[in-house]
């Protein structure tokens, strides 16, 4: 079994109103050096197979087709082999 983590980020040129709003909060707290706050998504799941290539293919397709929208987002992923209880081998 493999554990996958996917990070979906808004592409650099796309407006991120949420990040902008959070940065206003940073200013209110006095973090005046904080710049360009961007908010993305962190997604984790398991892929129930022993075939690493298949696992990687599924993670990639899942990320491309559903977890991200290529018009406005980029994604990166990593996979690690784990045992049935989800612990790293």
């Amino acid at each position, binding site marked *: 079994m493999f554990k996958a983590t996917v990070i979906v980020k808004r592409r650099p040129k*796309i*407006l991120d*109103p*949420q990040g902008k*709003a959070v940065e206003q909060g940073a200013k209110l707290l006095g973090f005046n050096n904080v710049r360009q706050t961007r908010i993305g*998504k962190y997604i984790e799941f398991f892929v129930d197979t022993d075939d690493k290539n298949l696992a990687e293919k599924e993670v990639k397709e899942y990320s491309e087709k*559903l*977890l991200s*929208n290529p*018009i*406005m987002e980029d994604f990166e992923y990593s996979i690690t082999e784990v045992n049935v209880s989800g612990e790293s081998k």
Partner: protein
Amino acid sequence: MKPKFGVVVFPGSNCDYDAYYSLKKVLHYNTEFIWHKEKDLKGSDVIILPGGFSYGDYLRTGAIARFSPVMDSVFSFAENGGIVIGICNGFQILLEIGLLPGVMLQNESLKFVCKDQYLLVENESTIFTNKIGKKVIKIPIKHGEGNYYADAETLKEIEGNNQVIFKYSSKEGKVEKKFNPNGSLNNIAGICNRKKNVMGLMPHPENACDPILGKTDGALIFKSVIENFTN
């Protein structure tokens, strides 16, 4: 021939009954609901993808609904020239499935907007607009993610092909930043595909049909479609 509207119901749709009510009870059109798990469009001539929060808007608005079983049928229907109108969340679903270009971002203000909005009818020669008979209409908007975005090349293409149908404007039809409720590119409120049979719009025409609500411009869009059908 009596044209028929099919209103798709997704889990989380909340303007499906508004659309059904306006089309069937106010405008007296043949109208039927279509559950999102069905593949059969029940002989509909016009498909309405209604507003709401399908699948809780998780991941991105419309991102999961576009994989509902009914959407395979809607996609082929649209590809074969069938008329599809996506309202608000329905517009977002059409963007996600790729029947319309671009994406929807959160409103620039980060606020959910709910108000009556004037729209300039930018393209008056589509089946959705050619019988409207006026240049500016008033229709309510109610959304948190209506900030239409497309890359420069796509924007140029849709503007060049006259695919922009409605723009946020003043009562007089002036298109300026200050009349833009959500930050959308060039005040875009509604667009169609290249073949001009699929339209997505953020404003809610179904909420401006019953005279008791004090506004009826939304009905003009549905009437336009129907008149094109019957003529």
